[in-house]
């Protein structure tokens, strides 16, 4: 994972709440077995509308998405994060993220920046009155700013540290392999195993 410290790019106002992962990427795009190339599925249904924000200049080249509350609800599909990243988004700003989406974003270097809804509203107004406004997201200072506007955002310390360092979880966990071995030794022997059993 690439380390993330700060990012500056065109902000995109998405005035919708409950942007579920079926909207971010419909299931029909989940059939691929690769990890890249999901940008064509991003907001696929909405992008068929020429007035959709990502079909308009200069939002088309946006990299900071500013969305309504409850972003990323629904399915666990990490493809939602891949689609946003593959399109070019580095940050999503929202007042509330679904838990699984937030976790998935943190694993893939996409910053899920949680702001007050009032800050989201201000950003929306700014991005709509001055399309193409650059938004800067500073993960060190935990601030999102554009023109004269600056707001704090929340991201948990552990995710922030991993994003800043570009660390991947599996190698971090494997440092504790001895603890895992010890835990396995102590598990009750009646816990289920999936090894096939002759079925009638």
């Amino acid at each position, binding site marked *: 994972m690439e380390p993330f410290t700060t990012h500056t790019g065109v902000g995109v106002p998405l005035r919708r709440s409950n942007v579920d992962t079926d909207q971010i990427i419909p299931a029909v795009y989940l059939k691929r077995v690769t990890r890249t190339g999901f940008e064509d599925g991003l907001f696929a249904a909405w992008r068929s509308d020429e007035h959709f924000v990502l079909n308009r200049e200069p939002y088309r080249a946006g990299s900071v998405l500013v969305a309504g509350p409850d972003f990323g609800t629904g399915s666990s599909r990490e493809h939602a994060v891949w689609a946003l990243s593959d399109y070019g988004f580095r940050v999503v700003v929202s007042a509330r993220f679904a838990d699984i989406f937030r976790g998935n974003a943190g694993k893939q270097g996409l910053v899920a920046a949680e702001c007050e809804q009032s800050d989201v509203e201000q950003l929306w107004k700014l991005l709509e009155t001055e399309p193409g406004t650059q938004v800067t997201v500073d993960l060190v200072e935990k601030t999102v700013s554009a023109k004269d506007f600056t707001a704090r955002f929340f991201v948990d310390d552990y995710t922030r540290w991993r994003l800043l360092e570009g660390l991947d979880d599996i190698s971090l966990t494997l440092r504790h392999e001895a603890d895992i071995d010890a*835990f396995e030794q102590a598990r009750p022997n009646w816990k289920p195993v999936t090894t096939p059993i002759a079925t009638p």
Partner: protein
Amino acid sequence: MGKTLAEKVWDQHVVRRGDGAEPDLLYIDLHLVHEVTSPQAFDGLRLAGRPVRRPDLTIATEDHNVPTIGIDLPIADPVSRTQVDTLRRNCAEFGVRLHPMGDVEQGIVHVVGPQLGLTQPGTTVVCGDSHTSTHGAFGALAFGIGTSEVEHVMATQTLPLRPFKTMAITVTGELRPGVTAKDVILAVIAKIGTGGGQGYVLEYRGPAIEKLSMEARMTVCNMSIEAGARAGMIAPDETTFEYLKGRPHAPQGADWDAAVASWRELRTDDDATFDAEVVVDAASLTPFVTWGTNPGQGLPLSATVPDPELIADENERVAAEKALAYMDLAPGTPLREIGVDTVFLGSCTNGRIEDLRAAADVIRGRRVAEGVRMLVVPGSMRVRAQAESEGLDAVFLAAGAEWRQAGCSMCLGMNPDQLAPGERSASTSNRNFEGRQGKGGRTHLVSPLVAAATAVRGTLSSPEDLSDDLVGAATSGDDRN
């Protein structure tokens, strides 16, 4: 101070306590795998030269992509076929047990785990699917994960996690006849909202929950994610033990006694406190249906389509306006007058044997309305076989419904079972998102009883709306007018 059920299961699985900002490392007892969210995870292992650490705690099935007719033929869609073939290759290479399309144990991953007896009280269960919350019905801590986490569990059999907050959903009193677990959970979601459970594990409790069968408990826990909660749980009791006893992977003999003794401890202590509490009166509930495009947009079937102008909160008002435009509904329309093209009975929410029995009891001797198609899709091949042994297939076929093979089917637009643009369904599945059942499709979430009654009348209905329209008396097509 006492602990909640969720805290007890959590504490039993901590491999290593995180210090400071670091999360706890939690051991995973059971990892369920399917074809959609696993290929990139297997690829990651391959690239890093890592094995699946515990293939004996891992099991795979094919469900999301599979067609539900013509399963003896190759999958027609080449992209779906590649994904299924990739799962088969990966499972063979990494030594993971797989139940492929056509196999006697194949089915939706959340139906297969419980029926094999793999889902047990006090276990931690994960799957790259948000409806993993289903397994919480057994008192397991079960939640959906993303593909990076799938790879993490494959490589380490653990997950780094921060403790959840806990929320009690207490359902008091007694459900009225014709009111089901689906109505309970739809009402809960409408009450707390699609974000109300975010960051929480929900524990469903109270007399109305204790009376539910295991199938009904699974329906409730299944939709916890629709309230934003990653997991929902119900304390195990005699109903749970009775369901598990004798299942292929349930403990046997002395192991059974040891397991049950341990499971009996899995109850929230009297002096434990929840971070939040919600109370629902079971007796106040009636059949519930959704009118909008998120599962929180639901109302009793007796209500009318809401008027967005009367909604005070601006975000909710805008969301309601967009939902009604997408759903092509006018404010004030009685929900009972909404006609449907398709009825879908199935999914990990309502594709188990009890659901099929309940719907069959309503539809027995009646006909599916003219111009309506009804798909009946068992959640697993075992459920299908059980239903056939009880003659339920004949009931559905005689009514004019389609009797299909097992899979996720019309719950999501990933396989051939989809709505056409503009088509409207009454569906026993879990999500009414825009395009969820096919691009442009419109979904009303309902219970199996409402699904069956709706199929007969052609408009959203409950069994009590059906009077003497048994076949032979009259054809039910007239009811559509």
